[in-house]
């Protein structure tokens, strides 16, 4: 019997992982609304511009109020996450800052755009004309989307580094490890090429793609890349490095070369590679970028949509005032149609793109998601979904799902040159997290469909209360589905921080936090969030009943 949790736990570094899970998890939950609320407010204002029904403008304003509150919390938690990454995963941030900095740069300005425009709208709502306000709201949602795109470009690279050649052939069902795959395209500067023995490199699986003006483009097996990155951050010199084995004979006695830090060489190769792709576009060239962006924004829209249904729906259940009810009916109608559209988009378009990308470029993760391991009860096999999954992933019923049991435990390691990782297979727990997301998404889709059916055939006023009572669990489930999707993405990459490049131990801090530090910080975060939710309920939700009533009257 395979223990899915044990394999997840076994990767260690729990101190850092718990801090990241709590910190980023909270930020992730909050930013769903930052992605969704201003977009919904923008659509509402377009409706208002067309039909001049002021209720739609009021609904938009309510959403912007919500945005102002969650944005503040999102910005604060985002800043804390950034600081947290610096102290908990400093080597990762170093690599990001050195080679992947441009989107982070660009994100700063996105962040500023979000902050300024959100509060311009919040504080100055009545000070602008309808058209100006609508334009500002357009930028209020473009800001978070642009910001999300920049951050997600780095996350996409962490899943699929630019220039990655994957290691699985779905037509034959064969893993390609023996041929040196997966490989990453790197530009090796001529200064280093002249030192290297090409015959030895080729025997290790390196294949030459071509030349650039100042270097040679080569597909390097990730086993080599992984080891070199490990050596770089552990301050190896060439004399201590695997590089010594691939040097030309005439260099073996050159002390200047032998005493060179491996970091300097990796640095030069990465600088050259980044320049080859383009300093400003390197991350965006990751095949994972577009699907990740579309899928993440979709998740934000779905969570927002179902939360709007919950908010307006529960209010509708308790309100007696007829005028207020009419206002809420419009809000509910909008929320339901919005939710149905975005969940269809999320499942059938963005989700499909994401799934195909994972299957192609992260086959180990895909194998874990499908749980193709004897002795493991996978959800796909339980529901006989294997063929359907193969079709969805590879557009062919005859394609083979990757076999998890055939993945060598040390597939990421270069022969006997380990980097401190004893198992490169991703944890099978992602089978459960992934299908939890899928089933929850399907349930939410059905729920939105039923509510839409009511709208079309009976109207909101004749909707059975039972369905509106389900709105709160619906909103919680939308958050749950989003969290499970994110969890699958991040957990399924283990033990890699950057797939094929940097492992968990290499990215971690030298001075790991103690258990009590972890516990205190985590409890502190959780307590703050609980306090915040209570404060939002007590001081924003409760009094807003009165405010909206007065506004409608």
């Amino acid at each position, binding site marked *: 019997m395979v223990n899915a949790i044990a394999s997840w736990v076994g990767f260690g570094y729990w101190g850092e992982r718990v801090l990241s899970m709590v910190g980023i998890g909270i930020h992730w939950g909050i930013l769903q609304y930052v992605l969704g609320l201003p977009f919904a407010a923008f659509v509402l204002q377009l409706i208002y511009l067309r039909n001049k029904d002021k209720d739609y403008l009021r609904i938009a304003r309510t959403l912007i109020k919500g945005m102002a*509150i969650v944005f*503040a919390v999102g*910005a*604060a938690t985002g*800043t*804390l996450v*950034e*600081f*947290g990454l*610096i*102290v*908990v995963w*400093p*080597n990762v*941030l*170093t*690599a*990001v*800052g*050195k080679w992947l*900095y*441009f989107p*982070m*740069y*660009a*994100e*700063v*300005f996105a*962040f*500023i*755009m979000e*902050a*300024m*425009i959100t*509060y*311009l709208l919040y*504080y*100055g709502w009545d*000070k602008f004309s309808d058209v100006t306000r609508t334009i500002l709201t357009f930028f209020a949602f473009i800001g978070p989307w642009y910001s999300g795109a920049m951050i997600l470009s780095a996350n996409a690279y962490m899943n699929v580094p630019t220039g990655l050649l994957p290691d699985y052939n779905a037509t034959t069902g064969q893993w390609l490890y023996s041929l040196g795959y997966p490989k990453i395209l790197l530009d090796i500067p001529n200064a280093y090429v002249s030192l290297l023995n090409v015959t030895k490199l080729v025997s290790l699986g390196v294949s030459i793609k071509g030349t650039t003006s100042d270097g040679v483009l080569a597909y390097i097996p990730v086993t080599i890349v992984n080891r070199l990155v490990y050596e770089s951050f552990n*301050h190896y*010199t060439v004399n201590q490095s695997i590089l010594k084995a691939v040097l030309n004979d005439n260099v073996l006695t050159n002390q200047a070369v032998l005493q060179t*830090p491996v970091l300097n060489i990796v640095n030069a190769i990465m*600088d050259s590679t980044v*320049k080859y792709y383009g*300093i*400003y576009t390197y991350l965006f060239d990751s095949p994972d970028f577009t699907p990740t962006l579309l899928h993440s924004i979709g998740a934000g829209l779905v969570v927002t949509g179902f939360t709007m249904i919950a908010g307006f729906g529960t209010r509708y259940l308790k309100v007696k005032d007829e005028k207020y009810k009419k206002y809420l009916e419009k809000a509910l109608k909008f929320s339901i149609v919005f939710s149905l559209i975005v969940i269809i988009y999320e499942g059938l378009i963005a989700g499909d793109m994401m799934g195909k990308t994972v299957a192609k470029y992260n086959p180990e993760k895909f194998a874990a998601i499908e749980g193709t391991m004897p002795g493991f009860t996978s959800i796909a096999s339980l529901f006989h979904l294997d063929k359907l999954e193969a079709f969805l992933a590879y557009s062919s019923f005859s394609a083979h799902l990757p076999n998890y049991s055939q993945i060598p435990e040390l597939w990421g390691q270069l022969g006997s040159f380990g980097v401190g990782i004893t198992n490169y297979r991703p944890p099978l727990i992602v089978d459960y997290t992934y299908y939890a997301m899928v089933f929850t998404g399907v349930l939410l889709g059905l729920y939105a469909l039923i509510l839409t059916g009511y709208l079309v055939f009976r109207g909101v006023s004749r909707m059975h209360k039972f369905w509106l009572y389900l709105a709160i669990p619906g909103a919680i489930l939308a958050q749950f589905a989003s969290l499970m999707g994110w969890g699958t993405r991040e957990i399924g990459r283990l033990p890699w921080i950057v797939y094929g490049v940097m492992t968990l131990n290499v990215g971690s*801090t*030298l*001075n790991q*936090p103690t258990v009590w530090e972890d516990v205190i*910080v985590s409890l*502190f*975060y959780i307590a*703050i969030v609980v*306090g*915040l939710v209570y*404060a939002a309920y*007590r*001081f924003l939700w409760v*009094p807003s009943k009165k405010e909206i009533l007065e506004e409608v009257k």
Partner: protein
Amino acid sequence: MFMESVFWLAFNFGIHIVLVNIIIGLAVLVPLFKYLGTKRNDMDLVTLSRKMMKWYAVTYGVAGVFGTAFTVFLFSFYPFFTDIIGNLLLVPFGMSIVFIALNFFSLIAYWYGWDHWSSKTHNTIGILMGASAIMIPFGFRQVFAFLNEPTGLAFSASNQPYLNVAIAYTNPTFWPLYLKSIDGALTTGMLAAMAGFGLLYLINSENKKYFEKSVNMLLLPSFIGLLLMIPLGFWYLMSLSNVPYKFNNIMGGFGWTIGNLGIAYNYSWLFALSMILTAIQVLAVIYIFYKGMKGSLISKSTAYSSVIAGASAIGTIESMEMLNAFSQFPRFIAALGNKQIATLPYPWNVTLSTALNLTDYNPLAAAPFATFFTSIMMAIMIIILALFIYVIFFKK
């Protein structure tokens, strides 16, 4: 020699640190005034507090933006330095992170819950807001003290560097720096608040009562704060005598040097500027006192004086912080020059020789389009910021 890496760091840090000082001051003053106003049944004081709370919230948002920008510039231009401080300074950074979070969430609870909490609960949250603001520099100033001299830096048996936190807090530059910062922040907060209400009064005389209230409440404490800056500043300066490189760059221009290092970069003019700005503050405050004794405490001239005092306080913070940062150029850790780094165990003697040098920046981050992009976006950002302030505070 113009270094854009240093320029952008100084630009963002310069804006961030001024706003942070105002924030710390307001975080203490707002709940204090609210408490006193309620206790004395002085509604003008409560209103004053609420107005200051709005300034606090807006300033906090803008400071956060520039703080984030600073961090991004730091790890883009100096990734290996960020790596080192990230690895070493987990505890001081962690402390600041925790207090930033606490401060932020207490700000939200205090602001949005103004008329909703019971008075006792609201005051308790206010205490939390003020205390957490004062504690944020307890971590960050430790980082700055470490950048003066790396007290507490040790190496394990396996040659890994770590920070002995208890020893780190015995850093001779920490306590004077921290206490001076808190005093500076409270004083600047008070003077800036008086200046703000003075400005509002000059724009519209209906705001006279708020200006009067702010002067009555803040004039004497801000004067005491200014006087306290003298011994605290001198204490900090003396503590830097352990770091001759930095000390000489600050005082060398006046002929006061330590050891035989000489002056690498003469920043005495910045020190002189700071002293002049401090003197202007003192004179402006004394003038208001004088006018008060003459029976015209609240007048256009005292309002102008308060604006001058507030602007000078902000200028002093800016010049002092720039002096503190630039006087150790190009060293990230002032006490560690190449000679000292060479004595560290391998491989740190090699790694740190480049990572701790400000002239050794990431060339990718300084690429032409990045510079162009940053300049354009920063200009747009400042325009939006100006528009933001106009709409929120002035647009009808």
